[in-house]
């Protein structure tokens, strides 16, 4: 079984639009939306949820004020300034490290696991899909990403599907690392801007750091052809194969409004090129 993750160092480069199209083009796959803190793939997949489970993130401290003697030890020891003068815990600052609970002479502090979101297993017109919703402001999105990924892998194993198609998240931090480590191939979607090139370099370095084979496609390439050429030169220098140049096409947004992927919506210029990108990516997947 192969795993393909679609990422882009920079947000808004079009990774979810590409992922939705691949979901329509690829055969025998499970789909995983690992962009858990801004999950959008379900908006164009019409998932029928058949299973849901709660997700608990990290724990947060709570102080029982009836037991608390206001000795101040926890406030001295806490390195995250999470306990105020009234011994109330600031949930956004608390890391759940347990220093207060372990050292409180009155045993007044407790660690309470937090409900941080929900995981869904759904059926879509393009196959089974695992997605999630992180409660806004919650932490531990990396753990939820790992969970979404492993559920999708289980489904692929059980249903003998050859591919897990993963929509990653922007950036290079914990959720991204959780969605890319150990996958067969990374498709980096970028845009022809200086920021796009800068962030491509960051994500490509991350892929190299973990030894993950990667390919690049330039979305909206015609916004700045010079920059597209610079990106392709950068890729050549790094021996990163470029698998396509997707043109700017208003049909991409129209497809989004219609709730489908661009390849299902139209036969326009972007749809055509995305299909070509899929063919090349699939070929790389088969040989990697």
């Amino acid at each position, binding site marked *: 079984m192969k795993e393909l993750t679609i990422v882009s160092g920079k947000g808004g480069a079009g990774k979810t639009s590409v992922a939705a199209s691949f979901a329509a083009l690829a055969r025998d796959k499970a789909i995983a939306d690992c962009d858990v803190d801004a999950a959008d793939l379900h908006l164009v997949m019409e998932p029928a949820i058949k299973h849901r489970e709660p997700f608990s993130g990290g724990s947060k401290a709570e102080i029982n004020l009836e037991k608390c003697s206001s000795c101040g030890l926890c406030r001295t020891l806490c390195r995250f300034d999470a306990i105020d003068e009234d011994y109330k815990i600031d949930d956004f600052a608390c890391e759940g490290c347990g220093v207060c609970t*372990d050292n409180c002479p009155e045993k007044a502090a407790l660690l309470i696991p937090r409900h941080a979101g929900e995981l869904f297993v759904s059926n879509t017109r393009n196959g089974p899909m695992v997605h999630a919703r992180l409660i806004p*402001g919650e932490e531990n999105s990396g753990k939820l990403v790992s969970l979404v990924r492993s559920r999708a892998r289980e489904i692929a194993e059980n249903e003998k599907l050859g591919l897990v198609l993963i929509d990653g998240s922007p950036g290079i931090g914990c959720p991204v690392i959780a969605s890319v480590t150990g996958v067969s191939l990374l498709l980096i979607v970028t845009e022809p801007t200086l*920021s796009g090139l800068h962030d491509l370099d960051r994500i490509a370095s991350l892929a190299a750091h973990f030894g993950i084979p990667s390919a690049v496609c330039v979305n909206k390439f015609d916004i700045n052809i010079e*920059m597209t050429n610079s990106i392709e030169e950068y890729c050549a220098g790094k021996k990163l194969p470029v698998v396509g140049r997707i043109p700017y096409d208003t049909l991409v947004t129209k497809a*989004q409004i219609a709730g489908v992927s661009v390849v299902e919506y139209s036969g326009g210029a972007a749809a055509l090129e995305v299909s070509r990108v899929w063919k090349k990516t699939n070929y790389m997947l088969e040989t990697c």
Partner: protein
Amino acid sequence: MKEEIRQTTTIAVASGKGGTGKTTVAVNLALTFSRAGKKTLLLDCDVEAPNAHIFLGTEGMESSRVTVRVPVVDESKCDGCGACGKACRFSAIVSLGGKALTFPSLCHACGGCVIACPNKAISEGEREIGAAFRGMFHGVDFAYGKLRIGEAMSPPLIRVVKKFKSDAELAIVDSPPGTSCPVVQSVRGSDYVALVTEPTPFGLHDLKLAVEMIREIGIPFGCIVNRAEAGDRLAHDFCLENDIPVIGAIPDDRRAAEAYSRGIPLIDALPDFKLLFEELGGKLIETAEACARKEVRR
């Protein structure tokens, strides 16, 4: 002699979805304010994919290593009792085969193991997680952070970038995309949040999540609609229905995309955008300062 403490009004620029134009808004606002004679600080807290420096420059910036504390075990004092491993909720230290073993990348630097060790065998060393940069560009006091490749945890670095001292009247925080812990870390403590969105289904969906997050933190906020097309009411209607003030709209303009792609601030490339940002900035500053004053009175 008493030092005069000047109140800084802080505006965070955030968005649920990536690529909606946070950096564009943050950079152009900072430049607009600075040119209007305000002492302005710009903090790029998107440490995983910082971009503001592309528009401002990096020449002559002072850089500093950013480190976090990690446990160091003195093996001659460790008897493998396992107290450190019990204290650590992150599996960053564990006692195996009669000695303590550390996994620095999992460490949250809470110091729990140091306290727990009965033999005082644990001290703390440093682990580099990235770098922070600071410099003056076009009158804007500018700082940003850059997370080391392969490093998972960005909040400690964001905290460092946010702590840069300044006597600025105005601070603009460019936040990372999303709605999880790095975003919370970036926007907390701000007087006002400007949520940048785009009128697409993805943009709108992620705006809803961002609104939920900001309401949870409890900071006043408003919305800026980017790439607005004439007659498209998608984002405006949502804001209207949910009592969210729309601070302004930035039109969808190919020339703007072009300037962005070359790393040129919109207000320098296009005179009509200069006017637009002056108006937008004026409105924003008025609202944010009112919120800051209310906060002081409280």
